[in-house]
């Protein structure tokens, strides 16, 4: 009994120590999906994260004077992970949408890109709802592109396929299993420039739609209002100081600065 108490005491002391450690360095856990999403976030074979969002994130964290720690989560469970406090911030090309704003809050947008229809070269295709009747239309689930398709293409007669990851969708579109996919224009040009996507071409941009929202922001828990304030100020500062432009020029030919 006595030794049991002693062990328990030791464990308590350890727990207290561990706790003070945590207090000394309150690292923000930044959620990124494990699969690469170039040029926004990708992981090298040595395990190093890089990309536009990662660079921007590092500058933001420096600006906010907080320690940030990238935590990998599954994309399709990324919002529940935030709510379950497995992560504190989603910084993973998460578009700001009214649906999502019901559940989480967002920082102000830190980039905006159009959505692009992409299909195999030579195939005549009109990406309007009427033109896609009977075609297989692929889109990654839990994206604003998916909500757009679900709402605007529901009556189109297109066979809509939802994919868990953009990787799988890219592969299936290149393989001709999907006639046309809707995805982020920047990610699309990246993929079309690669060897795997060489047989693909743009079939046009999707019209600007309120469903797509004002752009991409950092996803935060609703109760973390102070953190949102910090992010907003830091984003503004980076854009004003020109740091934002330096970072984005490394990755894009066109500006992705939020309007």
């Amino acid at each position, binding site marked *: 009994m006595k030794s049991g108490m002693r062990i328990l005491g030791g464990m308590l002391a350890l727990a207290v120590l561990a706790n003070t450690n945590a207090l000394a360095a309150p690292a923000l856990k930044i959620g990124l999906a494990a699969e690469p999403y170039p040029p926004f976030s990708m992981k090298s074979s040595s395990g190093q994260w890089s990309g536009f969002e990662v660079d921007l994130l590092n500058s933001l964290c420096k600006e906010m004077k907080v320690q940030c720690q990238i935590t990998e989560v599954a994309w399709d469970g990324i919002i529940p992970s935030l709510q379950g406090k497995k992560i504190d911030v989603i910084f993973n090309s998460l578009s700001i949408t009214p649906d999502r704003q019901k559940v989480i809050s967002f920082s102000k947008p830190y980039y905006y890109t159009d959505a692009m229809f992409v299909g195999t070269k030579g195939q005549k295709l009109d990406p309007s709802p009427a033109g896609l009747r009977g075609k297989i239309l692929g889109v990654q689930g839990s994206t604003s592109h*998916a909500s757009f398709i679900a709402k605007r293409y529901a009556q189109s007669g297109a066979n809509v396929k939802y994919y868990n990851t953009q990787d799988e969708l890219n592969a299936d579109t290149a393989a001709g*299993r999907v006639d046309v996919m809707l995805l982020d224009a920047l990610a699309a040009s990246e993929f079309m420039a690669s060897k795997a996507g060489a047989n693909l071409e743009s079939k046009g941009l999707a019209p600007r739609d309120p469903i797509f929202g004002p752009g991409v922001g950092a996803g935060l828990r609703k109760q973390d209002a102070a953190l949102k304030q910090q992010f907003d100020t830091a984003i503004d500062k980076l854009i004003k100081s020109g740091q934002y432009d330096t970072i984005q020029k490394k990755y894009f030919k066109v500006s992705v600065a939020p309007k």
Partner: protein
Amino acid sequence: MDFSWFAEFRQPLWLALLTTLQLLLISASAGFLLAVLVGFGRLSRQPFIAWLSLSYTNLIRGTPLLVQIYVMYYGLGSLFQDMPALRESWLWPYLREGFWYVALALTLSVGGYLGEVIRGGLRAVPKGELEAARALGMPHRLIVRRIWLPRTLYALLPTLSGEAVMLLKSTALASTVAVMDVLGIANLIRNQTFLTYEPLLLIATLYLVLAILIERGFKRLENRLPFRNAL
């Protein structure tokens, strides 16, 4: 608990249920026929056929079903996509669909697992009955059709019921290759409503009900048998 999404997703849920049932029926019936062949193949006196059946069983039972589905969909499927002639042909609408790759993978899996079960069942039929049939001058095919196979299947009914339920649950892997089966639709609902547990609870109940229906069906079949089996 928030089930307000149910009305909006009723139609896709129904289609998803049909997809799951189609997968189940196609792979159960095709797989069963394959399994009978494998079962007899395992008992064959020709060494090559016996070896082939054994290797097949080992291959199927030794690799995860998910890996088999991926090999079919991404491996076999990527061979087809580089054949322009095939891409222009009437077959392409089928060959591009994940559904048929999953159906094929499930069929092969049933063939492997059930084949071994059927082999055991075939061995368990009393030799005397087969010898009696032969003594009466029955040709081999007729013995198989009238006595050997029916006796085996009667004895195996409880096992077959279990295998059918296992197969039902295996169909959930279809959602990994963008097939909108019951699990696929639950993922879609979660993606669009950000609710995790409600859609999962609903489809868990669906699978449970289907499993109970399958077991009931087999039970009825067992009760209808011409004799109580005491093997």
